[in-house]
């Protein structure tokens, strides 16, 4: 299960819905979480737009992935981070991003942890591999 093995990071850097990158990136997270690796996920650049609440893809005629993102924790994708600078550049409030699950005990929403770019860079430097979407 997750939490052991080599450090692997999945990064989401592209805007949602315009391409399938984010959606198939999420599918990789779900599968990797079941493998023996120390998985982390980082949203940065236009990828942070995927974390905006209230997205509805019905008008686009595509299923979308908002439900999957909201359930990352249920799939044991728990080390999820977002780049502070990328949020700021796009006028997205740090406390205005979606939750990716709920704390089992307190029922409080769990949100991706906001980190400075330097901290994310330091994390990246420690990875065995980074899979970039």
């Amino acid at each position, binding site marked *: 299960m997750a939490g052991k093995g080599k450090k692997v990071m999945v990064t989401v850097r592209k805007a949602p819905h315009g391409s399938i990158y984010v959606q198939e990136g999420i599918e990789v997270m779900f599968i990797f979480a079941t493998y023996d*690796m120390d998985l982390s996920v980082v949203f940065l650049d236009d990828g942070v737009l995927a974390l905006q609440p209230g997205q509805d893809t019905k008008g686009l005629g595509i299923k979308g992935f908002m439900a999957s993102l909201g359930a990352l924790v249920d799939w044991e994708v728990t080390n999820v981070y977002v780049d502070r600078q990328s949020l700021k550049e796009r006028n997205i409030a740090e406390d205005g991003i979606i939750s990716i699950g709920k704390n089992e005990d307190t029922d409080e929403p769990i949100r991706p942890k906001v980190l400075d770019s330097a901290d994310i860079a330091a994390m990246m430097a420690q990875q065995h591999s*980074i*899979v970039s979407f």
Partner: protein
Amino acid sequence: MKLAVLVLEGPYNHEASDSAYQFIQAALAKGHTIRGVFFYDDGVYNATKLMDPPQDDRHISKRWSELGAKGIDMIVCVAAAKRRGIVENVLVPNVRISGLGQLASMIDESDRLVTFGD
């Protein structure tokens, strides 16, 4: 060094597939080992034998098949392939369909993963 390669874009429309191929050729020439190539997203289109480009152009799926013949593990993601109508019997030789778990294994067994996409 042992390398794994991830290809996220289809043939011809984007350069990613060509870049991946050239990268692999250069890496092999320098004596590196390619643990495998994993095709995901539109990358799964790289391996169809139905492509038939003009004779004076490179034949992308044939090139991948030739790399596979050298013993490099060439894998098309089953979930991405199903979305796009890529099934076993349209694949070029020396390429197989398997799951994302194979990408996890490739990463685990390689020193580096190099991703080619947009």
